[in-house]
């Protein structure tokens, strides 16, 4: 029987010829990832196993990014524990403040994920590296602990939904709009326990940053992973960022899919997800009059250089509304520096936005932009659950950087077309 791309990668890492959906396997890991929220619990479990070293010092990555730079004393203690563990274990890929970025932007940038890898991370958005043609998925702290100790993880082999992307996204339409559109179509459990496999002529029209955004939100559709077919753009990205050799897997022609969905990207409009689920999507012309108090542009979903360029294109020469607190967070130090060199930071600050050092902060209501009761935010983040960004009676509208920037200017959810001068 033919296998999907994910199934082929898993089979290769389980050391077997063939796998089938629902099969239980143990797979070899190329990278085990954790952050300041999930690693402290993993350290406790790691010690409980009785392990005294990690399976491979070069294949564990730890990034304090959620409540870092330390937001309070408890977070400082957690970061300290993670730092000391990393030092004691000799973990080569521990990224301290000043080096760190939001983990899912940082790991590809540092060349730690390449096509064909199997990666687990104690963070749900670990699925981001599927953009590179790797199998990567979020797990909990216990899996991270066992992964660090043994270099292995258990998996139930997933079936898949095949997305055939066609055409070219229109003006102001980005990877974020495409993935919100898809989640709106299939629902937040539409891909439960399955892979979302992307192929088709249209993939070539998507930048790597678009693909990272689309793979990143696979978990918001319930998927185990999102994965893109490897093409020239992928290989170019990998050769620029990594010294490791990519292993390219391609789905068999007779691979079985639970569902095949064709998407003409040319028909997708800028899309917004209304509270309190990412599936509550509306196209920008259907949003109505929604006044807002805050805009956040950043996160593992949309804090990359292209995202910032898009926001700058909209904000250039304009001022954000005096009633909208606008917070822009480049996802890594490298992106921050590039944004500075390109003059993007100047555009943001001139427009009246705050620019911050990399952190996940506001996305999960940690710090740097927590919402009060009754407040509304447009965010380029990934979840709009009840209380996600602060008070349980606050509201989050998920959108692209272009829509978020336009909304910051207008003081209400708006299309870039409405505000561009």
């Amino acid at each position, binding site marked *: 029987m033919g296998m999907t791309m994910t199934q082929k990668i898993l089979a290769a890492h389980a050391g077997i010829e063939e796998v089938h959906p629902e099969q239980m396997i143990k797979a070899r890991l190329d990278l085990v990832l954790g952050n300041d929220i999930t690693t402290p619990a993993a350290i406790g479990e790691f010690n409980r196993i009785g392990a005294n070293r990690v399976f491979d010092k070069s294949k564990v990555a730890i990034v304090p990014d959620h409540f870092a730079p330390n937001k309070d004393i*408890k977070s400082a203690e957690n970061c300290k524990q993670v730092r000391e563990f990393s030092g004691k274990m000799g973990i080569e890929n521990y990224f301290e403040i000043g080096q760190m970025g939001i983990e899912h932007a940082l790991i590809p940038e540092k060349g730690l994920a390449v096509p064909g890898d199997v990666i687990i991370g104690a963070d749900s958005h670990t699925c981001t590296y599927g953009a590179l043609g790797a199998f990567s998925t979020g797990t909990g702290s216990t899996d991270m602990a066992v992964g660090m100790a043994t270099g292995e993880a258990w998996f139930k082999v997933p079936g898949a939904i095949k997305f055939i992307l066609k055409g070219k996204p229109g003006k102001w339409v980005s990877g974020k709009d495409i993935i919100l559109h898809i989640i709106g179509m299939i629902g937040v459990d539409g891909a439960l326990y399955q892979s979302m496999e992307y192929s088709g002529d249209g993939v070539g029209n998507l930048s790597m940053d678009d693909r990272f955004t689309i793979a990143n939100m696979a978990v918001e559709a*319930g998927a185990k992973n999102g994965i893109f077919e490897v093409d020239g753009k992928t290989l170019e990205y990998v050769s620029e960022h990594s010294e490791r050799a990519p292993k390219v897997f391609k789905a068999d022609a007779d691979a079985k899919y639970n569902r095949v969905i064709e998407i003409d990207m040319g028909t997708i409009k800028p899309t917004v997800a209304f509270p309190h689920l990412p599936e509550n999507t509306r196209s920008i012309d259907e949003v109505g009059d929604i006044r807002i108090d805050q805009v956040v542009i950043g996160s593992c979903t949309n804090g990359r250089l292209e995202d910032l360029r898009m926001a700058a294109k909209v904000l250039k020469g304009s001022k954000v509304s005096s009633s909208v607190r606008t917070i822009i967070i480049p996802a890594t130090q490298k992106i921050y520096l590039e944004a500075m060199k390109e003059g993007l930071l100047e555009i943001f600050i001139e427009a009246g936005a705050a620019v911050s050092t990399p952190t996940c902060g506001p996305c999960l209501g940690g710090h740097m932009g927590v919402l009060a009761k009754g407040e509304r935010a447009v965010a380029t983040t990934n979840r709009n659950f009840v209380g996600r960004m602060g008070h349980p009676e606050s509201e989050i509208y998920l959108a692209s950087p272009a829509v978020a920037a336009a909304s910051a200017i207008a003081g209400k959810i708006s299309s870039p077309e409405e505000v561009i001068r």
Partner: protein
Amino acid sequence: MIKGRVFKYGDNVDTDVIIPARYLNITDKAELAFHCMEDIDGDFVKMVKPGDIIAAGKNFGCGSSREHAPLVIKLSGINCIIAESFARIFFRNAINIGLPILECADAARDMENGDRVEADIKTGRITNITKGRTYQAESFPEFMQDIMKAEGLINYVRDRGKGL
């Protein structure tokens, strides 16, 4: 055999309402458990008793990978979650930490707050005593059952003494 009273919730109960991120800097387990289900059911921690059961709709535990979510539910005294379906990371985290879960759409849909329910994790047999109905949940693959028998992945790995 698990026997308890039902706390019923709807579809897509996410990890942010199970344990809001504002508490994720807490490492003391008892303190963490005090906030279990806080943003969906403020009375939960006051009402829950050891041995009780959570019943829910589709996609229970969606969202973050935080293991704090199944952990606070386990620490609160809940003995089993019966749902129409689970979000996959929550599913594996529950198994990995030894929190019994069962997937059974009919049983979960029929259950109401306060129902008395009996569940056998080994056989997947669920009895709603209040309603006088029985159900059969999906059975777990042998490997997952072994992890559950060991009350979690750490014990399983430690007992084997040679990796996964």
